[in-house]
């Protein structure tokens, strides 16, 4: 098998129950080819965040396996897995915890052992990629929400991930910040899984969509086809914005 045949992400038969017995994932099978951008849709409580936490081993499946670039997500591999998988969490205030933007973006690569000039270069490039190079010495809490989300993306890009995972990237963003983020994401040459309630965003950014509901993948196909299936959307508590018709784009 040549390296390009190895899926960027392979989730096989993953089930997970929380310690209190609540079953969050019943059975998830999902494969992402390298370079693919895929939208992960589903109602609240479908298990999206739980699935995301499996992709870098924060949670380990009760049954089933996760592979990232061919490497199984197991305890001995966690360090390499977390370098390969970059997760941008929903609340940037959870992700940005260092005194300055520069320190925060440096946190991930520094954990990987990058130091001095190489670290400065990595930080500068990551901030450049999200258009936040000017903010390096500012404390995160002095930035606007949209800027914080971009810096949160930079903290992950600084680790040069092979798989980028975003949890609700457009929540609480104003339309301009939402647009800026889309432009940045489209320009990134990286495999991405984007969990969102923002269906037009999914259509714009992701050629492929999967729907997760009640802990299992219930639909997987081209985004335009899935969004055109009103019955499917309604069955899983999803709805297009008023007046939005994916077939007329």
């Amino acid at each position, binding site marked *: 098998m040549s390296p390009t045949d190895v899926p960027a992400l392979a989730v096989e038969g993953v089930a997970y129950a929380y310690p209190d017995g609540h079953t969050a994932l019943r059975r998830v099978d999902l494969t992402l080819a390298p370079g693919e951008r895929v939208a992960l849709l589903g109602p609240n409580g479908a298990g999206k965040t739980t699935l995301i936490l499996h992709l870098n081993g924060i949670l380990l499946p009760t049954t089933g396996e996760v592979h990232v670039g061919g490497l199984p997500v197991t305890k001995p591999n966690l360090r390499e897995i977390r370098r390969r998988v970059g997760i941008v*969490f929903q609340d940037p205030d959870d992700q940005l915890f260092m005194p300055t933007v520069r320190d925060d973006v440096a946190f991930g690569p520094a954990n990987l052992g990058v130091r001095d000039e190489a670290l400065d270069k990595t930080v500068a490039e990551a901030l450049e990629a999200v258009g936040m190079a000017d903010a390096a010495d500012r404390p995160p*809490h*002095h930035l606007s929400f949209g800027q914080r989300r971009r810096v949160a993306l930079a903290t992950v890009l600084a680790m040069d991930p092979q798989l980028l995972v975003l949890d609700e990237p457009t929540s609480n963003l104003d339309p301009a910040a939402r647009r800026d983020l889309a432009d940045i994401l489209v320009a990134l040459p990286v495999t991405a899984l984007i969990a969102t309630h923002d269906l037009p965003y999914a259509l714009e950014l992701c050629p492929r969509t999967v729907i997760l509901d009640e802990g299992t993948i219930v639909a997987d196909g081209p985004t335009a086809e899935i969004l055109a299936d009103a019955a499917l959307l309604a069955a899983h508590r999803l709805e297009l914005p008023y007046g939005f018709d994916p077939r007329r784009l």
Partner: protein
Amino acid sequence: MSGGHGHAHGLYRPGATAVHGLAPQVKVAATLAFVFAVVATPREAFWAFGVDALLLVVVARLAAMPLLLLVRRLVIELPFLTFALFLPLVGEAPHTEVLGLSLSEPGLWGAWNILAKGTLGVAATILLASTTSVAELLVGLDRLHVPRVFTAIAGFMVRYAEVITGEARRMRIARLSRGYDPRWLWQGRALAATAGTLFIRSFERGERIHVAMLSRGFAGELPPARSAAAGGDAAGADRRARLLAALVPAVAAAAALTAWITA
């Protein structure tokens, strides 16, 4: 954090003076040494305190810090000084007559001691905080080999103070919006519930932050704080600045020593 709106920058006043440019660890060490020298000065040596005050005025001028602002920020020590105010009233004999009040002489000396040393110490700290950003301070403490755990705790505190006060403010507005405005202690039930909720929320946020840290390869040890602004490591001009910084506590210490010898 009394500002409430917008961005509370704390005490820091950005600037480009020699004092601002000084490496943070030098400033922290000089401030600490100065405070020790002041505390070690005998309370009878009024002239030595005069020298100390003069040193601070010189540093304030160098840092382009308006003296009036410095004095205004000194207000923070007032609650502590009220304690000193009681000493002359409750102190022991001998007593002396001031404006018709019988005041204890040891008490007066005690009050003066607290007032003079407290004011000088607070003023020095205010100068440090006004010329050094929080991020730089943390770098300075780190370079002085303060355990990383302490600088990390301080860093997290500064980072999340605003997030949590923001949360508290929103909860208060939501409470007021439902017509609940407690004024007295016995109406504090909802207030206590708010505090509890805030605690739980902060705890949960802590868990989420920890997950975010793990996701970026955190393995139990924080990387050193590093801010480009906290440079000041160039030779030459910087060496002179460091020498001047060392001069401040040195002069204060010399004054204290002279006062002890001549006393």
